[in-house]
């Protein structure tokens, strides 16, 4: 489908090919793969192994730590390429953003400890920032880490944490001073957050599964931290300076999500085109001849080009170390455009399939929830509009 790739290097074309080849043995078992996501709530382990063998996990890791440092453009290309064939791994996104965070902000000790194992696929990671009373407004978080000799002690509760049951470690954002202390010291609300890599199986970590429907292949949990000991070297960045570390991780997350959404759109569009070209309802012509079916699909095709353009621009800006504010602008815009597009693609793929669109065997219905999630999390569409309104247009903030 993509022969002319403006701004895309030969290397990206090679990465797309690598992913396509890696997926080949899974493609003939796509239905079985989808069923195991839905029923077991996890992606088959052999898929992770295949991703590791293809070297996808090392893209974000410096060469000195066993990676390729190929960067976010390479990682986004892989997310996009996998999604365009109907595959993905939620822990790939999470582990990747954690790896980037450790590589960018971590001490030598924390890098030595985790990066080589991420590159070889030995460890998977989750990410925990959200709390029951701190979602959109992360600064309301109360999870607390206190220094005690050669370790920190972590207490608190995070919620909606994806895939922590499948993970070996979880990156946790916690307060290293309480909100009251910050207030009385006259510090900004962004102060005194810290980022930790926590063993998902450490004593004191308990999981309560949540009955959620959105991400097939990874479940969500409320995670209780009860006096969990975290070694000092597992701190990422300086103590109290985790706010900036955390923000630097959110841009790549948005870019990877945008890339995945572009790929999902391509997948859904391909499925819709196939069906629309074959299904005959009246006379001899397939339903794809009807403009009510055809035009919404043509519209998706146009918008994929636009969304990819912006997504890879954001990734290139990140890789070129353009300042975080500018990269953030592209990253947010790319996430906005791509995720709305993927939601429309799911809707239209279902519509094109008629009643079959609701069949689990056809498998497009699962995308209804999967794509819709992205309008809400990790950042909502409205918060992106707020951000653009305030920071780019320079208009007053409403909240």
């Amino acid at each position, binding site marked *: 489908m993509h022969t002319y790739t403006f701004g895309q290097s030969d290397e990206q074309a090679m990465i797309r090919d*690598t992913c396509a080849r890696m997926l080949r043995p899974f493609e003939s078992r796509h239905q079985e793969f989808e069923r195991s996501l839905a029923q077991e709530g996890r992606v088959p382990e052999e898929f992770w192994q295949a991703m590791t063998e*293809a070297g996808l996990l090392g893209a974000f890791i410096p060469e000195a730590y066993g990676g*390729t440092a190929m960067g976010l453009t390479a990682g986004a290309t892989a997310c996009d390429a996998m999604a365009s064939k109907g595959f993905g791994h939620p822990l790939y996104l999470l582990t990747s953003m954690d790896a980037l965070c450790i590589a960018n902000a971590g001490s030598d000790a924390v890098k030595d400890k985790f990066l080589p194992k991420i590159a070889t696929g030995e460890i998977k990671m989750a990410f925990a920032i959200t709390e029951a009373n701190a979602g959109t407004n992360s600064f309301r978080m109360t999870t607390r880490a206190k220094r005690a000799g050669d370790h920190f002690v972590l207490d608190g509760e995070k919620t909606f944490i994806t895939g922590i049951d499948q993970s070996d470690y979880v990156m946790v954002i916690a307060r290293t001073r309480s909100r009251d202390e910050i207030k009385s010291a006259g510090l900004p609300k962004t102060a005194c957050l810290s980022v930790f890599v926590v063993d998902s199986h450490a004593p004191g970590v308990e999981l309560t599964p949540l009955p959620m429907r959105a991400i097939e292949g990874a479940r969500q949990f409320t995670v209780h931290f009860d006096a969990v000991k975290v070694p000092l070297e597992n701190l990422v960045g300086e103590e109290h300076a985790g706010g900036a570390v955390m923000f630097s991780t959110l841009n790549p997350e948005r870019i990877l999500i945008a890339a995945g959404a572009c790929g999902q759109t391509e997948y859904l569009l391909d499925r819709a085109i196939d069906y629309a070209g074959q299904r005959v309802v009246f006379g001899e012509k397939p339903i794809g001849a009807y403009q009510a079916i055809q035009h919404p699909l043509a519209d998706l095709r146009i918008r994929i080009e636009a969304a990819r353009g912006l997504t890879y621009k954001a990734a290139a800006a990140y890789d070129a170390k353009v300042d975080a504010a500018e990269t953030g602008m592209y990253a947010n815009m790319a996430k906005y455009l791509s995720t709305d597009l993927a939601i429309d693609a799911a809707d239209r793929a279902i519509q094109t399939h008629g009643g079959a669109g609701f069949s689990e065997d056809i498998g497009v219905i699962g995308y209804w929830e999967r794509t819709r999630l992205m309008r809400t999390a990790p950042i909502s569409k409205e918060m992106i509009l707020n951000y653009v309104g305030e920071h780019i247009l320079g208009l007053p903030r409403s909240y």
Partner: protein
Amino acid sequence: MKILVTVKRVPDPETSIKVKPDGTGIVTDNIKWVVNPFDEIGVEEALRIKEKVAGSEVVLVSIGDKVAQEQLRTGLAMGADRAILVLADDLDPLGVARVLAKLVDDEKPDLIIMGKQAIDDDSNAVGQMLAELLGWPQGTFASQIELSDDQKSASVTREVDGGLETLSFPLPGVITADLRLNEPRYASLPGIMKARKKELKEIPVADLGVDVTPRVTITKMEPPPSREAGKIVASVEELVNLLHTEAKVI
């Protein structure tokens, strides 16, 4: 041991090909290009030999347009050591064989592995011509290759009509790869990364001083006639009946 492997840029076998209205060739717009699948098998075999025989070098050769760099990079990303791109317009098989023979003079490989044919024009001629030009033994349509412990000779199992044939011959020699020789690996991200730094030398064909005047010209290309839709029959009896009365084959 030094192994020379050919890598031709061809249209992806999954692309649908259209013939130009004037019949002079195919429409090259909007098609995806890949490494000729038989050559890819050749690259894989060379890499497997390299993994077994310490100190081996795998050198890729492509002849064609500058864009064939992409396919050479793919081969380098699979693990080959360096690549040579001879810049030339479309050559006929004898022209290709002569160019390769000249490169063999310069490179002095111990073994040449190539696809048994390129899936674009399906000539299935270059390997045989090259062996003849060099005066080297050849093992075509290889489904298995075994080298002697001292790497001085090769034993090649060939897929021939009605079975398998095994040949042994001293090296240097030319081997052409058949489909079942191996399952080629794909380039991993670390492989793609390493390929960035590998040598890819370009040589204009004129610099080689080889006569590449075509002996073969394509006079006309036509798409195969489109097939009519099949007929679905309800039962075996009906099938047998129709084969007898309509198709008249039984």
